């Protein structure tokens, strides 16, 4: 497969969306494929960057969308939605079954924890031909993806399907094996594992630290969601109070509703815009009936016969920003008030279970594994760590990103190469419009056309027609991508690639500068000798300059005048 544009080579100049994604997913690439309705190929392209298109399509906080430069015109491209749609279509129409990657290396690698970080490292190393074994404590692989996120947000079959893809590549997953109990670092070394990657995530909930915390009915969020995902039925009673503002708090609240709770209240000590949870998830929860009280923090939990009855809280006001940059809540005296509750679910954070880890790996306050930020190598050579166990609770995509970086380090470690060289350059964002004020903004907000598919049964043809309509909307949305990157690297190959560049015939150009006037991308300008010159990095290939040049001195590499005229002749069936 060859790629046309010369831009591909300088990798470090990335479009804003790709630069914002921790896993550097080639958004522009799969957008280009979607534009041409190539759904299958676009999923394949995503998989080149990371293994969980469907999962991220559902739960990712999508930093790429916030960075999308289309926001300067109307609103960003719906990247996350399109990724999910592509992955779902591919899954429903029969996922591509990759054949196992031949083992070209013999150094065995052990990965602790089958969460997003672990699986991502396994995925990358498997692709490189390493024999990888993943040890997972829980009965099923997936970590937080399976046990941390409720089903309504992330269906289990989706997680299973994506993990199966990794297994198809040849990754061996051993479940029910607990690190620190069944296996330890030394046992692994003895079994011949040359490198170990610890990614067992955060198992413990953070304590509220208020009296009455250990009353019955106080059900930490992590365990609550894990039990639910394990299929246990949990009785939460009528009134539930959830403490905390993160995703797990919202998940716990919504799950409580689904378990019959009538009144679910989320108590959060800061205000709305400090909530770490995804805004659209918070809105969905409120719509489902969850009440959220801001600037409230529990003072104590009052129980009756060992069972929680009331929870007394204090009003807060926001003071100076704390280490995380968020403003520290300060209690206001004498504002105690109580809520009647049957269950209290604290969701104020999670902590890794560090007791099973050698102390040398831990940071000074022994609350997470300390690693070299760039190489993810721990104090012990050959042992790496990543994901929530290092960064404490973070998003799936950040874990995947960490996994990718760890895989690179492990690969270099096993080949004895220096871990750091060439990895420090920072990324330079490319965008082709220099000043956005000049661009006419669209007056009304763009709203995607709503397709009501409802739940009713549909015949097979209707479904197919419905799917075509969905695909049409998807392609239109994909077409809104402004292609900020130099080359879409869509790996679509020569015949697919439509990248076109203007070319100036210097003998004809008299330097009248009309081309520079009509080109909004400032891609063609007069050079010092007074002749028009095309900057191939910026030229989008629209061809306006070619049609406007008074001396007809500018042609296009691909869409030449003669090509267009031959197309015209062809369509007309050249008149005799």
């Amino acid at each position: 497969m060859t790629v046309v544009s010369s831009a591909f080579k300088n990798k470090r100049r990335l479009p804003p969306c790709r630069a914002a994604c921790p896993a550097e997913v080639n958004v522009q690439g799969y957008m280009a494929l979607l534009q041409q309705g190539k759904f299958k190929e676009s999923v394949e392209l995503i998989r080149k960057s990371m293994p969980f298109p469907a999962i991220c399509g559902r739960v990712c906080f999508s930093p790429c969308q916030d960075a999308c430069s289309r926001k300067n015109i109307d609103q960003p491209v719906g990247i996350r939605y399109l990724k999910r749609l592509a992955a779902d279509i591919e899954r429903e129409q029969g996922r591509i079954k990759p054949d196992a990657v031949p083992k070209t290396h013999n150094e065995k690698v052990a990965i602790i924890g089958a969460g997003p970080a672990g699986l991502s490292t396994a995925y990358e190393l498997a692709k490189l031909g390493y024999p990888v074994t993943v040890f997972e404590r829980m009965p099923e692989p997936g970590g937080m993806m399976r046990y941390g996120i409720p089903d309504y947000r992330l269906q289990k079959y989706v997680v299973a399907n994506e993990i199966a893809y990794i297994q198809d590549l040849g990754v061996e997953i051993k479940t029910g094996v607990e690190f620190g109990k069944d296996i330890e670092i030394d046992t692994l070394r003895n079994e011949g594992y040359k490198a170990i990657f610890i990614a067992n995530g955060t198992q413990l909930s953070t304590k509220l630290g208020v009296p009455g915390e250990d009353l019955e009915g106080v059900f930490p969020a992590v365990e609550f969601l894990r039990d639910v995902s394990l299929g246990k039925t949990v009785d939460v009673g009528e009134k539930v109070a959830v403490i905390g503002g993160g995703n797990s708090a919202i998940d716990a609240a919504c799950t409580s509703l689904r378990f019959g709770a009538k009144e679910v209240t989320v108590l959060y000590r800061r205000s709305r815009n400090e909530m770490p949870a995804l805004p659209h998830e918070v809105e969905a929860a409120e719509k489902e009936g969850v009440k959220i009280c801001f600037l409230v923090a529990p003072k104590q939990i009052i129980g009756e016969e060992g069972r929680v009855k009331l929870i007394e809280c204090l009003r807060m006001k926001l003071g100076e920003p704390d280490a995380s940059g968020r403003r520290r809540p300060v209690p206001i005296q004498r504002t105690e008030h109580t809520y009647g509750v049957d269950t209290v679910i604290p969701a104020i954070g999670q902590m890794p279970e560090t007791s099973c880890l050698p102390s040398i790996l831990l940071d000074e306050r022994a609350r997470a594994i300390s690693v070299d930020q760039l190489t993810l190598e721990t104090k012990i050579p050959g042992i790496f760590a990543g994901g929530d166990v290092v960064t404490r609770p973070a998003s799936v995509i950040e874990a995947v990103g960490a996994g990718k970086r760890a895989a690179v380090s492990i690969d270099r470690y096993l080949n004895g190469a220096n871990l750091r060289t060439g990895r420090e350059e920072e990324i330079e964002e490319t965008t082709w419009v220099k000043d956005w004020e000049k661009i006419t903004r669209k007056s009304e907000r763009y709203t995607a056309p709503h397709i009501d598919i409802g739940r009713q049964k549909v015949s097979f043809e209707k479904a197919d027609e419905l799917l075509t309509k969905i695909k049409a909307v998807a392609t239109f949305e994909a077409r809104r991508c402004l292609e900020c990157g130099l080359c879409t690297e869509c790996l679509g190959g020569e015949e697919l690639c439509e990248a076109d560049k203007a070319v100036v015939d210097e003998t004809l150009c008299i330097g009248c500068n009309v081309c520079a006037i009509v080109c909004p991308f400032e891609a063609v300008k007069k050079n010092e000798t007074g002749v028009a010159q095309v900057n191939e990095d910026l030229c989008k290939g629209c061809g306006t300059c070619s049609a406007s040049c008074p001396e007809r001195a500018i042609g296009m590499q691909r869409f030449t005048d003669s090509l267009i005229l031959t197309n015209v002749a062809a369509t007309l069936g050249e008149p005799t």
Partner: protein
Amino acid sequence: MMFRPKIVGFLCNWSLPQEVNTTGTGIIQGYPKIRIVRVMCIGRIDPVIVLETFVKGADGVLVIGCHPPDCHYIEGNLQAERKIKMLKKLISRTGLEPERLRLDWAYASETELFATIIDDFRTQVAVLGPSPLAGKKPDENVLAGIMAAKAVTGDSRLRTLVGREKELIEEGNVYNEKVEQEEFDEVMNESIDEEYVRSRIRLLVKDRPMSVEGLARHLGLDPKKVLRHIVVLRHRGLVALDKIEREDPLYIALEVT
């Protein structure tokens, strides 16, 4: 048999509905009534190409671009709009009905709108009947008119004006004054008139030398005006005196090296 107009649709890639077959001959199942020629942006369409399409026998040319301000290349569609406005004025002088050329806006996602535009244009062209240029023996006069128009759109004068129009009107000229649209149109119309007649004259005297009176009779113009055009053409080195017959100087076109 019922007249089925041959219509060529120049469609911008970004406003082309998904189901339209983008490669191959452009005649697609859903729309047998129109022949699609896909371009990355309708800004790419050179006025000369539109006129060449009519010469090749199209009954109608439909240009569909992204609805402003929605253009993948920001203002390609706006530049095309001004080019087509100029083209229509030029075509109306050739004897070909300007209604055979139409510019319209559409969204890729709104396939129905796309379909209605095509149908509406199809009926409009059907009413006009086959193009005088189509078929075995195209109308001599209109063909000469279109060929002259083609030469004019290839020449730098009109292309400079239409290329600079948007900037002159929206951002202002070199004296930091905004040019009024009416004032610009006046200059444009005058330039179109002059250059078109000059181009007709030059083509007429290409094959055989003609006198001012002969040219005036052929073009139905006042001999005084024709003489003024001959003066300009001579000054530009495009036409020269061939010989004088009795009291009529005959002029012949010069090949411009």
